[in-house]
């Protein structure tokens, strides 16, 4: 008897196998326009040199060792310079007392360097840190910080003078049991001017009972790996209503947040999907349909991801959603969604059709050319300021055990940068950009923000068991830009949920001020528009979170402007070169 096992021929296997060799879809070099931007990793010289410790380096026993951490840009000392908060983790073996790794807070000194002020700031906490989000929840003018954990989340109130206080219990956010918090976002869902708080939860994981690789039940390409999430109990997302007195009320069930089609939540971003002035939420779920919580205006949410077509792949399959980017990449006035997924799968680009539906444009937009990489942190950013949002993805495999395999992508992986050609199509320009993007790292969270106030959005990346990266974006001054800081007065001070419409030389663009984003990270609240050759902004229209609509005319390009709710005038600040 001679038996032959036919290779798996399901669509899943084939779709997982689809890709075009990076670069094979490119035109010959002489046909390609030059790239107007590049990146330089300045982490070492900037002093952002802390090691992110996260689980075993060669093998992981539990999935909690694989998720890595997020990063947050936060101007904690209100000096106009973005500081950087990097979440840190630990190991199963633990550390001797006093030796456990802690989160990092780096104060931006304004000269291209940062100072580690973690201890001074009262943020030297340890544990299985996951993500971070920023918001001035008490509207006192100082941005506060929420850090999620596998364990117990923490709320840090910014007390001023460079110090934070852990007010978790006092704020009513204490937990009676271990939970696995992941992506989070501050946002004002009921438009009362106060930031509420959403925290995704990944798995209801009990290390005492969870299966381990030695059980042989969980394998990746034949190698035993950490188990989950399929087979494990999913976590329930949480929503906390800000009472306005420094405390929060758990409204998770009441609000309908816990009634979602899927579970295993990771990346979170706010967005106004249906452009009705009430902020919604998108949650990337791992191995489950993603969630799109539509704000019902009455304190409740409905998960419409499945019915709106924003939950699955183009052929109806749940994907391993990790990171989320929101942006209007096609400039039609609606907020589109981009999600990073697992190796052997594509990322997903959902074009917001405007009718309450997502149209999956993954292959049509050229995104389907890459399946080798495993994606995490991501954002839509106009790196070359040509007026079209590009995409940045951080990659790295989940399992360090893949180093044993002869797979192409490996554990440490390169980034991907997709350049938007303005015709609904993206081109992978990573190889053309070269290092540091092509330097393989086990990347996870990424925060996007202009830390040096040169008008270019930079990128901070947390790597597993490695040092943080800080990419300074170098742009072409031939293209112009404008950056806006929105300050709410009756709306929440951060203006999270504000929608900004920019009109310049006949070109219209839309953006939002968002909570959360990327993978368990927090981006700069400032809104950055690329203006291409236009030297000024004809008009900016803002719809504030509380509904007020205002406009400003004739703003100078290549400047930072502060737009205060109700003022109708912009405060102009020249950029730092």
């Amino acid at each position: 008897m001679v038996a032959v096992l036919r290779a798996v021929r399901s669509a899943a296997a084939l779709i997982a196998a689809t890709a075009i060799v990076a670069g094979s879809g490119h035109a010959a070099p002489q046909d390609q326009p030059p790239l107007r931007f590049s990146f330089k990793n300045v982490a070492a010289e900037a002093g952002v040199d802390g090691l992110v410790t996260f689980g075993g380096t060669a093998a992981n026993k539990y999935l909690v060792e694989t998720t890595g951490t997020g990063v947050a840009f936060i101007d904690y000392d209100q000096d106009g310079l973005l500081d950087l908060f990097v979440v840190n983790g630990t190991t199963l073996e633990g550390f001797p007392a006093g030796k456990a790794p802690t989160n990092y807070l780096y104060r931006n000194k304004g000269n291209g360097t940062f100072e580690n002020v973690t201890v001074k700031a009262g943020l030297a906490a340890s544990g299985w840190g996951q993500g971070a989000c920023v918001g001035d929840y008490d509207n006192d003018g100082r941005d506060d910080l929420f850090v999620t954990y596998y364990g117990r989340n923490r709320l840090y109130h910014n007390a001023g003078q460079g110090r934070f206080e852990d007010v978790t219990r006092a704020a009513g956010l204490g937990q009676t049991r271990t939970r696995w918090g992941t992506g989070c976002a501050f946002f004002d869902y009921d438009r009362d001017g106060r930031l509420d708080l959403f925290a995704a939860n990944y798995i209801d994981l009990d290390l005492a009972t969870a299966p381990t690789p030695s059980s042989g039940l969980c394998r990746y390409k034949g190698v035993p790996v950490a188990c989950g999430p399929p087979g494990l109990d999913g976590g329930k997302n949480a929503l906390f209503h800000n009472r306005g007195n420094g405390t929060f009320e758990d409204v998770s069930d009441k609000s309908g947040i816990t009634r979602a089609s899927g579970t295993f939540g990771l990346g979170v971003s706010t967005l106004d999907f249906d452009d009705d002035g009430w902020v919604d939420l998108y949650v990337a779920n791992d191995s489950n349909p993603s969630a799109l919580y539509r704000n019902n205006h009455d304190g409740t949410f409905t998960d419409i991801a499945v019915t709106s077509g924003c939950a699955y792949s183009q052929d109806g399959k749940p994907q391993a959603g990790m990171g989320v980017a929101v942006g209007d990449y096609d400039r039609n006035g609606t907020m589109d969604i981009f999600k990073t997924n697992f190796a052997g799968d594509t990322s997903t680009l959902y074009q917001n059709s405007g009718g309450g539906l997502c149209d999956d444009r993954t292959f049509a937009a050229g995104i389907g050319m890459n399946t080798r990489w495993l994606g995490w942190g991501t954002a839509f950013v106009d790196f070359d300021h040509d007026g079209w949002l590009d995409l940045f993805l951080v990659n790295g495999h989940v399992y360090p055990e893949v180093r044993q395999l002869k797979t192409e992508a490996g554990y440490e992986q390169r980034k991907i940068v997709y350049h938007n050609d303005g015709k609904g199509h993206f081109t992978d320009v990573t190889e053309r950009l070269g290092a540091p993007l092509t330097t393989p790292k086990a990347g996870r969270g990424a925060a996007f923000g202009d830390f040096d106030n040169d008008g270019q959005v930079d990128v901070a990346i947390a790597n597993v068991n490695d040092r943080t990266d800080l990419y300074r974006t170098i742009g072409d001054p031939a293209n112009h830009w404008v950056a806006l800081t929105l300050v709410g007065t009756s709306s929440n001070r951060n203006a999270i949920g504000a929608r900004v419409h920019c009109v310049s030389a006949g070109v219209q663009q839309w953006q939002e001020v968002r909570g959360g984003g990327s993978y368990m990270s927090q981006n700069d609240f400032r809104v950055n528009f690329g203006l291409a050759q236009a030297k000024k902004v004809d008009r900016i229209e803002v719809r504030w979170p509380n509904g007020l609509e205002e406009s400003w005319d004739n703003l100078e390009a290549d400047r930072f402007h502060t737009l205060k709710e109700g003022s109708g005038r912009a405060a102009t600040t020249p950029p730092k070169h």
Partner: protein
Amino acid sequence: MVILLATAICVFAQSTSVVAPGKPAARAHYSRGTVLEAQQDLAAAEAAYRAAVESDPGMAAAHDRLGFVLGKLGRTADAIAEFERAVALQPDLADAQYHLGATLWWTKQMEAARKPLERAAALRPAHAESRYYLGLVKREQGDIAGAVEELRAAVKADPSLAAAHLQLGVALQAWGDIDNAIAALERAVALDPSRADAANSLGLALMQKGDAARAVETLRKTVDRHPDFGSARLNLGTALLQAGDTASAVDVYRALTERETTNAEAFYDLGLALKQRDDFAAAETAFRTALRLDPAMPEAPYSLGVVLWQTRRLDEAAAMFREALSRRPEYADAHYMLGTVLKQQGDRDAALREFRETIRINPSFTEAYTSIGQVLTAARDPEAAAEAFAEAQRLNKRKADSQAAVFAVNAGRERLQKGDVRGAIARFRDAVRLAPDNAQAHYQLALALRRTGAVTEARAEYESARRLAPYLRW
């Protein structure tokens, strides 16, 4: 019988001499026949045995030996006739029953083979070869449980019978008992490393278990030892893909397509491997070659269709999916992908037809329900869409529960190892609740209950387990 396939033991490779009763002259001819047979003078032996049966037509043993020699001479039909005469004269002549049954098996007369083999096994339960052939017959007739029983008896009777270990392994594999299949196949390979089919089957079983590394190692050795064994090369490629070594898989498939230029399956598998290496254009070429070489293979047009779909050539993709369906009308995946293309092209009605056909063929095709829901939502039929989404959710939950059940069984076994029988029972009950069709859940629960003395309930759980996985033993 001329060709003796490597997978079975040779009926005529051994001879069991019996000094049979009969008339003196017949006995003398018979004895002379056995001497000549031992000297390999088959023609003379035939003559001697014929003389014996002429002297004594009722000498069953002589008919049996005559049949044996005729079989060795390749005169199978005559051999069968003599065996039949022998068993008609002396039904308890075990050798004759065995020879008859085995020869009928070789000539693919399964129904006829069963009775004489059963008789032979009953007469001589420890005769390994009788049990072996009876096992093969039962397997051919779909009686896997019976086949396993017979083959187990064969290896017990003769642990050195490599062919029996091999067939036992294959039967256990078909049954789903992968671990024991691997053990049996390993034994077959150890006993006779020259058996390419045993090593090949072992490689397959290891792949089924998910042990890609060992599968690769096993199949590599097989290919090195038997370079012309194309199936092993194909399986090696698959094992390499399973292990994530796509580069080596491509090398293996390329080498095979160069040796066997009309091997459609090799080109097809090459296409799959190239696709995984992101060599889209080459994958497409390989699929097209497979398509051309084998007009009956539905997978080649299907896979080519997926490539075309992903490179935004929707019309061509649809054509390929239709081609796949013309080759295999009940190809659920092809209906689904055709529906997906039609949905993207805006042809909702046609898309719905394809999705519904997908579900008719495979009622558990979750994505089809999701896609139906999406089409109906776009068509502004929210109620019908909600029904479809609900069914998708139910199926997804079933999958999730099934996975959770596997973990629960594992957790229960760990508790048992720690002596926590109650805790183990609780986990096994969880597993049964989550996935009533999980054989191991019922089985482990049965074993745990038996330890507590709850024999009646244990028995009931065991019967549930056996219905799902007949190879499980109390």
